[in-house]
C-alpha cells in the first residue's frame, strides 16, 4: 500500500461524527463542572486499601513494641521485639518509598514534550519496584520472631539445625531477591512468575515505554 493510500484511509475516519461530537461536548461540560480531581484519583481502590492496612500495621507494631520497652522492659521477648522491629521498619521504608514515588509521579508536568514527561514518569514508576525489593528483606525475621527463653533453654541440636537452616534459606532468598529483582532480569521465568500479576502490568509497560524512548534517543545519537 502506498503512502497516499494510508493517509487517505486515515482521513476517511479522521473527524468525529455528530454523535461523538455531542459526547465530547458533554464531557467538556462535565469536566468544567467537576473541576480538578485529587491526586489519589489515579490509585486503584485495592492499592489504597493495601496502603491503609500497611499504615495500621506499622502504627500498631510501633505501639506494641514501645509498650514492651516502656512498661515491661525486663520481661519483653527479645527476639520477638527485634524481629518485629526489623519487619515494621522495612514495611515503613517500603511505604514511604511507594508514597514518595506516587507523589513525584503526580507532580510530573504533562505539558512537557512527550519523551521527557514519559521518561520521567516511567523511571519513577519502575523505581516503585524498590519497595517490593525492600519488603523481601523481611523474609528471615518471619523465622525468628517466636524464639524465646524456653526455646533457647530446651531445644536439641537437631532442632536448632532445622531452625537455622530455614532462617539461613529465608535470609539468602530475601537478599537474592533484593539484589536480583531488577530490570535486567525481567525476561527470566522466575521474574515473570513473581511479578506475573496484573498489579505489576503498569511496571512492565513502563519499562517497555522507557525502552522505546531510549531506542529513539539512541537512533538520534547514532547518526
Amino acid at each position, binding site marked *: *500500500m502506498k503512502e497516499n493510500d494510508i493517509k487517505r484511509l486515515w482521513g476517511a475516519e479522521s473527524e468525529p461524527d455528530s454523535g461523538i461530537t455531542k459526547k465530547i461536548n458533554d464531557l467538556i461540560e462535565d469536566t468544567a463542572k467537576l473541576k480538578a480531581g485529587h491526586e489519589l484519583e489515579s490509585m486503584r481502590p485495592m492499592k489504597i486499601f493495601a496502603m491503609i492496612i500497611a499504615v495500621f500495621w506499622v502504627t500498631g507494631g510501633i505501639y506494641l513494641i514501645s509498650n514492651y520497652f516502656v512498661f515491661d522492659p525486663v520481661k519483653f521477648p527479645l527476639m520477638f521485639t527485634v524481629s518485629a522491629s526489623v519487619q515494621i521498619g522495612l514495611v515503613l521504608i517500603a511505604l514511604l518509598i511507594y508514597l514518595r514515588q506516587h507523589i513525584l509521579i503526580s507532580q510530573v508536568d504533562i*505539558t512537557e*514534550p512527550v519523551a521527557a514527561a514519559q521518561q520521567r514518569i516511567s523511571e519513577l514508576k519502575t523505581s516503585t519496584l524498590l519497595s517490593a525489593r525492600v519488603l523481601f528483606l523481611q523474609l528471615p525475621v518471619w523465622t525468628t520472631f517466636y524464639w524465646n527463653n524456653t526455646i533457647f533453654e530446651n531445644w536439641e541440636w537437631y532442632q536448632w539445625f532445622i531452625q537455622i537452616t530455614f532462617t539461613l534459606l529465608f535470609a539468602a532468598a530475601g537478599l537474592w531477591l533484593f539484589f536480583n529483582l531488577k530490570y535486567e532480569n525481567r525476561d527470566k521465568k522466575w521474574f515473570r512468575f513473581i511479578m506475573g500479576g496484573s498489579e505489576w502490568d503498569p511496571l512492565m509497560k513502563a519499562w517497555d515505554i522507557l525502552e522505546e524512548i531510549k531506542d529513539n534517543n539512541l537512533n538520534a545519537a547514532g547518526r
Partner: protein
Amino acid sequence: MNKFNKESFFREIAGSHKGIFYKVARTYCAGSPGEQEDLIQEILLQVWKSIDKYNDSYALSTWLYRISINTAISYYRKHSRISQANVRVESESGYGGTPPDNSEQERISLLMKFISELGEVDKAIMLLYLEEKTHAEMSAILGFSVSNIGTRIGRIKEKLKIRFLESEK
C-alpha cells in the same frame, strides 16, 4: 486566571480542538468506544488541571497534543486490559465521517489494527504524521530531534507496508 476565565478558556479550547482528543483516543484505544470515551474524559481532566500552566510560547494545538498523548500513554500503562487484541478487523466502532464501503472499511480497520500494534511512542509519531504535522511540529510535541523523527517515520511506514502486504497474501 480567575475561576470564570478558567472555565470559559477551558470550554473554548476544548470545544475548538475536540478533534485532537478524538484522534488520540482513537489511536490509543482503537476498537473500543467505551475506552475511547474514558480516555477523552481523562484527557479533558488533565487539560483542566494544566490550564494554569499554559503559555503562548507554543501553539495551542502543540500544547494540547502533548497533554493528550502523555495522558494516553499513561492511560495505557495503567489499564492492563488495553491491547491490540481489542482491535478487530471488521469495524465495530460505529464512528467516523462518511461511511466508506465494505472493502474500504476493512482496510481502515486493518490500518487501525496495524497502528495499534506499534509501540506507544511510535503510535504518537504515526498519528502526528498522518495528521500532516511538520517534523518541526512533531519535534516540539514529542521532544525528539527533527532528524530522529524522520528516521523513525521511515521505519514505521515500512512496518505498515509489510503488514499490509502480509494481509493481502
